[in-house]
């Protein structure tokens, strides 16, 4: 197998999968609003990362997690281009998850999923993943001003909805 020729790389992949697969699946779910697709996108993410490593054996992403997240976001974008993802209903997808979380938590996720794409990505990266605004801007390829604005607007929307019981559905 190809990976046998590159000592250490397989271990790196293993470490990444164990460490980040859960986070990346959740991130993909918030992008795609579909559990199966999220798991699929997560696997594609690692497959793409692995293929990249094979092509560039000396490559070191620096911030592993940020690099994988960027691949995941791009993968989700590819998925979203597909016609089948145009009418996915996150509410329905959440109801189909095997474990029923408290209603307030599901509402928060639902609201997060309803944010405009860029706001949602900023909320995920900065609000959930704990990246700095500068890291978030760099990863999304948008200026920091946009990150600030997206975060403020997204947070204000979520805060208003979560604390005031407002839901525009």
């Amino acid at each position, binding site marked *: *197998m*190809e990976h046998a020729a590159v000592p250490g790389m*397989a271990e790196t*992949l*293993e470490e990444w*999968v*164990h460490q980040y*697969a*859960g986070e990346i*699946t*959740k991130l993909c*779910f*918030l992008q795609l609003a*579909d559990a*199966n*697709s*999220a*798991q*699929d996108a997560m*696997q*594609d993410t*690692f497959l*793409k990362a*692995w*293929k990249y490593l094979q092509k560039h054996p000396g490559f070191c992403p620096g911030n592993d997690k940020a690099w994988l997240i960027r691949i995941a976001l791009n993968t989700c974008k*590819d998925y979203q*281009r*597909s*016609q*089948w993802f*145009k*009418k996915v209903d996150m509410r329905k997808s*959440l109801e189909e*998850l095997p*474990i029923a*979380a*408290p209603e*307030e*938590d*599901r509402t*928060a*996720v639902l609201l*997060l999923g309803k944010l405009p794409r860029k706001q949602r990505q900023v*909320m995920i990266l900065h*609000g*959930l993943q704990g990246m700095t605004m*500068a890291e978030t*801007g*760099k990863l999304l390829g948008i*200026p*920091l*001003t*946009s990150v*600030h604005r997206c975060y*403020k*607007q997204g*947070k*204000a929307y*979520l805060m208003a909805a979560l*604390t005031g019981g407002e839901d525009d559905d």
Partner: protein
Amino acid sequence: MTDREFRERLQKSVNSTLSCLEPSARQCDRIVQETLEGKKVMKKHISLALALAILLACITAGAGAATLLWRDYVPQMKQEEHELGDYDAWPDAQRIQLAKDILAMGYLEDSEDTRILSDETATEQEKAAAADRLMLQLTGEDDVREVHSTLITYAIMGHEDTWTPAQRAWWNGIITMYGDDGAPDTLIAPTEEDLPEEEAVRIGRAAVMEAYGFDEAYMDGLTPVTYLYVTDVRPDYRRWIIHFKQYPDGVGSYMEKEYIVVVDENGEVIADPDIAEPSIYEKAEMQRESKEEEKPQYMTVFRKYSEQNGLNPFWEWPYTEKAAYSTEIFPLTKDLESLQWEVGESTIYRYGLPQSDDMPYEDALNKAYETIEAEYGLTSDQAKCYSEVYEAFDITDENNTKWKFVLVNPDDDMGLHYRVIIDSKTGDVILAERFPWQERLQDMEYDLKYY
């Protein structure tokens, strides 16, 4: 709720709601293994979208008749999965029967395990174990929990990208009937009255070439995958959608790119609002515009200053940086009608450095603090809490240059901010206001308070 509390609340909600999506350590091991082998783990409940990306197992010559048998059999297995759960949860008798049926259809080669299936001396457990091994052999899996009707279908019929439109329509009907993800529109099998698939591909291919300027050689590297469909909105309007997919390592590797074309029943390349699909020409144009937008020289200037200011927002740059930036970018932007917005906002005003007859920076800033103390009843200590200063020397009107300050309390950056504008020549306060950060939150003008 502080920002930290908000984030913790959000984190808790996401973890609580989506914890079930986290793969187990065993599943992680499996993902690693499959990834190392360049494959993708197949899920049990597979969506159509996923189905479109599953790896190829070629339809072998001579398997046509048997394929038809499996097609007839799939609904039965789907029904059993619906009633009993996945294969690994089935009673021994059902697992053995499935293996026997598949053997009878000709998809399994004779082996010791196929012999055990009909060995009267073997126990039920031995036969079930043989059935499991045969299913794993057929599907290429190593865990019976992964065995599923969908996997068997792909093992027998190959990657869906190699199917005919009629096969895809059939499959779409099957997975929709049994509650898996259905397509938002309906795939249908072509008839003689439809625009022939080959013609649709030819039209689609020509459209992609025209839209993107590709040559024949490039197009030869793309795999066309065709679907014929109607929608709820227009059930009688039969359209082809063709995905030209780029598999760098051949079908079976991950898909790197795809170009999607919709061709209607008259052979016209169209945009289809029913499925929110722009025309290929629109998409190519959008891509070109997107690339062109990245080109302007002024963006290079903006990025340079942005990077040397730690990628911080423009309003946080020191007034000296704003002055240098403004001097450099103004010649590049003054004649342009539209700018990318971050540059647009940072070039609304022109910035410069105070001259000898202007109030020095330190004096102007002290004046700003004195102003908020006087205007808003703050003590000196309270005013000093607003230690985060956004500053600018505005030379937009050369005869009326101004110092601009926004004062923020870093311990309460979601609270009230103060804004003071001072005439740099006379030291008169032109404007003093305080505002909540979230005021006019949705209004693009809001941020201009900081500029």
